């Protein structure tokens, strides 16, 4: 028997010594995609599921995904959060098919098998048969047929899930330094301001790389330069976890006025374009520092964003080799007043599927996906900042964090 059929993707050999070159095949190969599902998404990785504040009451649930696997997250009668694979133990139908809601128990619509909010099988319709005929036999053990439970951690209100017992606790997974940068931004109870969904015509990894690629920011997103948003007075850098898997890219302003609201005068340097209305660039320094942009990735597919006062968590869901979906959950703080709500509305013009400084991320991956087909055995190169995977102080002109991603990918995939 062909072993490649049993264990797809194992024939793949990483073609170079290090991770400063990446073969195009990784974006186009179905076997590698299938292997990713099994050993990466269902391997030793933490995946964002939802926010604690989205399911505040007992019985509240939300549907989500880890890779291709449908997951349901629910708060039980004790107030504890549980996550299960959203698949009936019987015929495998979704037990939950509405995106969110409140329930007393899970009841599969197909044959009405019921589960409690911890995933335990509580009822099998006609389990005793009808008039002594049919039904379950004695060998059937209810306790062996619950919903498959997912290990979770509640990280500052972000519910993270992992299939694997091997995954280290979240704080050691990303390391103390990157844990501190989550704590820097998410300092108060959160509230949801809305959701966006964006379909990328490209393999999921191209969007992950894009987030870790601080080199492209002012080059692709011309809005920054055209309207003078990125200024020489700003400094920044890259932080990397020890593993290289996770990163933080940040910029900060060095000078601010006396008040805690820095109203930037946005003027173009070269071509005379300027914003007529600069409200969306106003920045209330609510986090106690001068950081203007903070993009943090958690391997494999979570992004935590602070752009001025635009806070969000982004969850990337692979949708086959050639497509992926990005779910943006737009956040504010529970204590925000109506002025702050309005300011967050304004600044959110910068981000999302129609965002002035983010929309290009929607198309650039598709451009690579199309061009990859020219020759999938050729390689992209990641030369900026050398070959190492190391933090960068002062400069963001580096592909260090992208190389770190590929280190993580290879380690998970065993290639």
């Amino acid at each position, binding site marked *: 028997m062909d072993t490649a059929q049993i264990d797809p993707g194992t024939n793949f050999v990483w073609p170079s010594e290090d991770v400063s070159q990446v073969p195009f095949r990784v974006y186009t190969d179905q076997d590698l995609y299938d292997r990713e599902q099994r050993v990466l998404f269902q391997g030793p990785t933490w995946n964002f599921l939802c926010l604690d504040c989205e399911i505040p009451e007992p019985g509240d649930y939300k549907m989500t995904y880890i890779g291709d696997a449908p997951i349901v997250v629910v708060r039980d009668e004790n107030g504890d959060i549980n996550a299960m694979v959203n698949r009936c133990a019987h015929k495998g139908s979704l037990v939950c098919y509405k995106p969110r809601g409140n329930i007393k128990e899970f009841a599969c619509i197909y044959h009405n098998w019921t589960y409690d909010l911890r995933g335990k099988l509580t009822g099998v319709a006609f389990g005793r048969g009808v008039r002594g005929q049919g039904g379950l036999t004695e060998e059937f053990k209810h306790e062996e047929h619950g919903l498959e439970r997912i290990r979770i951690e509640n990280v500052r209100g972000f519910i993270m899930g992992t299939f694997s017992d091997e995954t280290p606790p979240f704080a050691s997974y990303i390391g103390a330094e990157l844990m501190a940068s989550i704590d820097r931004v998410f300092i108060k109870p959160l509230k*949801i*301001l*809305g*959701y*966006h*969904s*964006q*379909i*990328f*015509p490209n393999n999921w990894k191209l969007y992950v790389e894009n987030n870790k690629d601080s080199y492209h920011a002012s080059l*692709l997103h*011309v*809005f920054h330069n*055209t*309207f003078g948003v990125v200024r020489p007075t700003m400094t920044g850098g890259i932080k990397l976890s020890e593993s290289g898997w996770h990163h933080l890219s940040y910029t900060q302003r060095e000078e601010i006025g006396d008040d805690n609201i820095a109203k930037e005068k946005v003027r173009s340097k070269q*071509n005379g*374009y300027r*914003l*007529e*209305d600069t*409200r*969306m660039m106003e920045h209330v320094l609510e986090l106690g520092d001068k950081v203007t942009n903070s993009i943090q990735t958690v391997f494999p597919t979570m992004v935590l964003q602070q752009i001025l006062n635009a806070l969000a968590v982004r969850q990337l869901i692979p949708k086959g080799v050639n497509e992926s*979906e990005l779910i943006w959950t*737009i956040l504010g703080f529970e204590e925000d007043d109506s002025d702050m*709500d309005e300011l*967050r*509305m*304004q600044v*959110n*013009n910068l981000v*999302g*599927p*129609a965002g*002035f400084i983010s*929309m*290009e991320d*929607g*198309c650039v991956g*598709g451009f690579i996906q199309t061009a990859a087909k020219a020759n999938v055995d050729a390689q992209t190169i990641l030369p900026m900042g050398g070959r190492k995977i190391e933090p960068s102080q002062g400069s963001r002109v580096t592909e260090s964090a992208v190389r770190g991603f590929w280190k993580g990918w290879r380690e998970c995939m065993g290639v």
Partner: protein
Amino acid sequence: MTTKTDFDRDLSLRLRIDALLANYIHCIDEDRLEEWHNYFTDDGRYKVVTRENYDLGLPVALIYCDGRGMFKDRISALRNANIYEPHVYCHMVSALKILDSSGPNIKTQSNFTVTRTMSEGNMMTFLCGKTIDTVTEIDGDLKFKERTVILDSRRIDTLLVIPA
């Protein structure tokens, strides 16, 4: 009961709003986007939201313009800064309903679809949903005081740059 006089007044208003909608969508579909802001009052508000957020009472928009400056900024960014594969829209608008015409601000709703055709000629149904508009008369012309585009199609394919 609607009298004939009521009906005539209503018909006349409907035709005027219908003309506003037609002029508006042709302005966008013909890429005369620099004129887009003229369809709004100086303090006009424009939002593109998803039905999901709208139904959940969540405020954030995909595009939010508040006042003429922001309308102009959207278009100057689209022309001078944002990068995307060239494409055009074709709007289909139907089922205009007047929700309230008792005061100077007339509230209406209508359904729409937008097809998007890319530079290579491939077309998709890109957006669909309804608009809820507040229309008012300024110097004899009807303008949008508020226009909320509510998308049933909440998954945005690739990116949204041209307003709907």
